[in-house]
């Protein structure tokens, strides 16, 4: 009995000791990235975020001199973990201190939406390009605390279709096939794209669900061949996954003169490495500048943000930068993504502080009023956050050349922009 009392006393004392020093109000931010899990290991997110945050706190001046207390969690591509982490941090930290939270990809989760927008009312920076949340049917009125860091998939596909309309040279109506993954993000945006294509008078010849688990794309490509598709919009896949390479290679062989097109995640460095020659001529849309060609040294130096990211990576992660595919930074895009979050957080919090309202509501107001060029990421163009997305996108074209290096044939090249940055808020669809 006595022992129990001692224990309780010790426990209470410990809590007091722990809670004692924490009197000053801190600025806290929670970030979550899928750094491991079924899709593979993507530590670049974390590296970028850590380097970015350290820079912000030390050299970058913090929030007008105040330092940001940041938390980084790996949610392992598991929505349950993401929600659980978020709930835990919300319970552990007071509403005055935890001012922002960020998440990635699984943002469209129902329990999370409720929690963010109704219970916690915390500004949430989301990595998903969900059309459902940020498109016409969702938007700021429905999800007031959700902010996306890129144009929605619906807008990305519409931009591609608009590009087809402007560049279609053959006779007759353009014949478009849609290939998308049977996942939440594969199905997201495709209906909007199809509707838009029909509105522009295209022939939508095929809608094919091509699973991630596919090991052969012969059936899908034969369907496209039968229907005489001229354009394929390939949506919902990472350029890094094997199924992308399988589809691209097979399609190039089976369907003659097909124009392969894709959305943000398919426009990547990895697709060049795995799809190789089949990637040549690919037209895709991306919401960030393409930053990492092969070889890496020839990255576009005219883009301030890309240059900054390469400088950061070389400065803070020289080993990983050099290692590249062998366990280092596989694609600078991922690193930039981490940096983007860090800079975004600094900018938002500074704006809120300047307004004198360093609260969740103040942060929301700062985001709503933000007009920024994002350190020159979009070629000097500024964007506003009124649709709760960064509405910028650009259309790129893949250029791949196989080069003999030593005794191996290796792909070189990258993706080059073929349009200027498009602000989807300003486009009349």
């Amino acid at each position: 009995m006595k022992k129990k009392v001692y224990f309780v006393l010790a426990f209470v004392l410990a809590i007091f000791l722990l809670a004692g020093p924490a009197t000053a109000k801190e600025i806290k931010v929670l970030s979550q990235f899928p750094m491991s899990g079924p899709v593979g290991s993507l530590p670049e997110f974390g590296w970028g975020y850590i380097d970015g945050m350290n820079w912000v706190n030390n050299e970058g001046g913090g929030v007008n001199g105040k330092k940001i207390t940041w938390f980084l969690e790996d949610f392992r591509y598991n929505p349950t973990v993401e929600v659980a982490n978020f709930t835990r941090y919300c319970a552990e930290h007071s509403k005055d201190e935890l001012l922002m939270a960020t998440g990635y990809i699984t943002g469209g989760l129902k329990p999370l939406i409720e929690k963010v927008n109704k219970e916690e009312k915390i500004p949430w920076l989301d990595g998903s390009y969900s059309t459902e949340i940020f498109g016409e049917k969702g938007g700021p009125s429905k999800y007031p605390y959700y902010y996306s860091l890129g144009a929605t998939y619906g807008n990305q596909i519409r931009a591609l279709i608009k590009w087809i309309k402007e560049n279609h040279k053959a006779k007759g109506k353009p014949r478009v096939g849609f290939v998308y993954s049977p996942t939440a993000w594969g199905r997201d945006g495709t209906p909007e794209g199809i509707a838009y294509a029909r509105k522009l008078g295209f022939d939508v010849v095929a809608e094919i669900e091509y699973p991630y688990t596919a090991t052969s794309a012969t059936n899908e490509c034969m369907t496209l061949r039968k229907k005489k598709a001229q354009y394929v919009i390939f949506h919902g896949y990472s350029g890094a996954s094997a199924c992308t390479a399988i589809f691209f290679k097979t399609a190039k062989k089976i369907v003659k003169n097909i124009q392969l097109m894709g959305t943000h995640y398919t426009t990547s460095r990895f697709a060049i490495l795995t799809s190789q020659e089949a990637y040549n001529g690919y037209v895709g849309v991306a919401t960030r500048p393409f930053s990492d060609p092969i070889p890496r040294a020839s990255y576009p130096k005219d883009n301030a943000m890309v240059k900054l990211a390469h400088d950061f990576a070389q400065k803070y992660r020289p080993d990983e930068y050099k290692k590249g595919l062998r366990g280092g930074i596989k694609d600078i895009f991922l690193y930039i993504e981490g940096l983007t979050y860090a800079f975004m957080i600094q900018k938002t919090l500074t704006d809120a502080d300047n307004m004198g309202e360093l609260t969740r509501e103040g942060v929301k107001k700062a985001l709503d009023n933000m007009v920024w060029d994002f350190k020159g990421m979009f070629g000097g163009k500024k964007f506003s956050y009124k649709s709760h997305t960064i509405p910028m996108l650009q259309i790129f074209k893949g250029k791949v050349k196989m080069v003999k290096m030593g005794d191996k044939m290796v792909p070189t090249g990258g993706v080059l922009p073929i349009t200027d940055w498009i602000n989807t808020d300003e486009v009349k669809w």
Partner: protein
Amino acid sequence: MIDLIQTLGSGILVGLVYALLGLCIVIIFKASEAFNFAIGEFLILGSFLFYVLFFNESLPWHRALPLGVLIFLFFSYVLFFDIDLNFLIAVPLGIAAGLLIFCFLFFGLKLPSLITSPLIRFMIALPLGLLAAGIVGSMVERLTIKPLLGRSPISMTIVSLGLGFFLRGCIQLIWGSHSYSFFLDLPDITIEIGDLLYLSDPIWAGILSLLTFGLVIVFLFRTRWGLAIRATSEDQSKAMAFGINARFILMIVWAISALCIAVAGIMISNFGALQVGMSYVGLRAIPVVLIGGMDSIGGALVGGIIVGICEALAGSYIEPMGLVGFKEVAPYLLLLIVLFIRPYGLFGTVRIERV
């Protein structure tokens, strides 16, 4: 009509690869009555081993060295205990094998610089890759399955489940989880007659799978080792009593199985890319063996072709009707029907009952 021929043809070509996967399950099932759930991981592992040899991939020393040491330990063990060599011969041979593997992994095989013709390079790299896959298969058997000899087959099945996760983890550690571009540059034998089109890669996959299948059958039914394997498959204790080293035979069975899976894996990877996540292909073997019969080698062939055709038909006739994703389910649906009619599968053994 042309449509149907096209569909059936491509179904059969893929089906032959599935048949090979089925065969790998069947021979292990016959030998130890256990279902090898790690088949997908073996598939990826075999493909990666081939990849290393064919594309001159090399590993950093901290990944090559442990593998070399593992090979050394394994070889010395097998040479000393199973083949009964003298300790002084077995250990140096083991060291030699380990060193060789380490050199291969660390420096690469340099095949591409030595031989320019991709076909010849393929013909050299394939046996080497398969040999490596076979060694890994037997190594895995030694470490995980052998201690369970004589125990319930269920425990082996469960061990193979865990083994799958372990192997996947190892592959991710060694080669990472991103995808690798895979192109064999085999001679182009695309068949194109009017609307009919068969790509070169699936045809090669079909041919090589069938060839491997045939070789395994010849090995099992025409050689004394095959006879010993069949005898051991029937009853381990009887085989042991008649001087067949059942433990060694079981190891050989696993090696053959791993080797065939590697062929299937290489052929599947050749459709485009290789990635650790592709291990779920191995699960296609489940409807194959259950339709064909768990212990029938001919059944694996028929089951594989049935599953391939079923997938192709579902993909090109049923899916366009709006049932998206039906292709993945169709083999299992068929499996259900088959099991209703013949619970042992189409060619499952009818137990010998003496009257």
